[in-house]
């Protein structure tokens, strides 16, 4: 008698325990699982076009520039930079030379000439103008 039909006489629906937790969550006090979020109209239809990899990243990555062209362009750019630099240096050098010469001449005359010599280098009108300035009351 003790061993009589110990096997459980009850059965459950297939997958019952797998879904049990789910069913409990869906019981009366469970909260609605309805998706409260929405998206703009036709959002998913247009989504692909807004993803760069789909629209243009691939094509951009595949556009390879020939190495020779890169070398040629780099050489031209370097040559232009060197030429411009040389011209600039040359111009600066000329300006500096002219300035130095002018300053040298001015200093030479101002230092070595006395007042009579300086007067002799001036026009008469300049002398009169200068004198009149200093003689005015």
């Amino acid at each position: 008698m003790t061993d009589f039909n110990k096997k459980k006489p009850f059965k459950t629906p297939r997958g019952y325990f797998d879904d049990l937790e789910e069913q409990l969550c869906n019981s009366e006090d469970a909260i609605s699982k309805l998706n409260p979020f929405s998206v703009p109209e036709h959002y998913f239809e247009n989504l692909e076009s807004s993803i760069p990899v789909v629209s243009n990243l691939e094509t951009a990555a595949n556009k390879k520039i020939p190495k020779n062209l890169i070398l040629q362009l780099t050489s031209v750019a370097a040559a232009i930079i060197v030429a411009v630099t040389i011209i600039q240096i040359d111009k600066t050098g000329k300006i500096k030379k002219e300035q130095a010469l002018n300053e040298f001449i001015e200093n030479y005359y101002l230092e070595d000439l006395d007042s009579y010599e300086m007067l002799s280098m001036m026009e008469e009108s300049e002398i009169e103008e200068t004198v009149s300035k200093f003689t005015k009351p």
Partner: protein
Amino acid sequence: MSEPQSIFVSALQNPSTKEEAFKRLVSEYKERLYWHIRKLVLDHDDAHDVIQNTFIKIHLNIDKFRENSSLYTWMYRIATNESLNFINSKAVKMGIQNQEWIEAKADGLMADSYFDGDQAALKLQKMVARLPEKQRIVFNMRYFDNMNYEAISEVLDTSVGALKASYHHAVKKIKNELND
């Protein structure tokens, strides 16, 4: 997508077929990934930014995919990481914690033109936002997306036991708050 995953993955990894296969991949998975991301970041514009980044990451890394998991699980993981990185970067810029940022988003949902939920749905979203990050992700995947623990385990690289505990804690907190 009726063809076996390995054939599709081969097409994605072959330079001559990659572009066409990738378009199919986006078309096939865009909605599912979008909704997963949306539930994590809450805002549509943010979800749009994240899904763009997600597909770019998938495109850049598809050659490294070795089929240790299903393609969808792998993409789901990228989408989850991108969502969390997005939240982190926004929070850092504002000088607040990730949790504060997501709670602020949940508080502003009623004014969001792309939120159609009623007061109960809003309350639930606010409660979910208050959960710790891991619990929030697990709750979303389990409760809303109906994912089984094994799949969540693969995505989050966490043991099934730990996930069950996280989910249990999350449900308990939410029920307690509902009863208050």
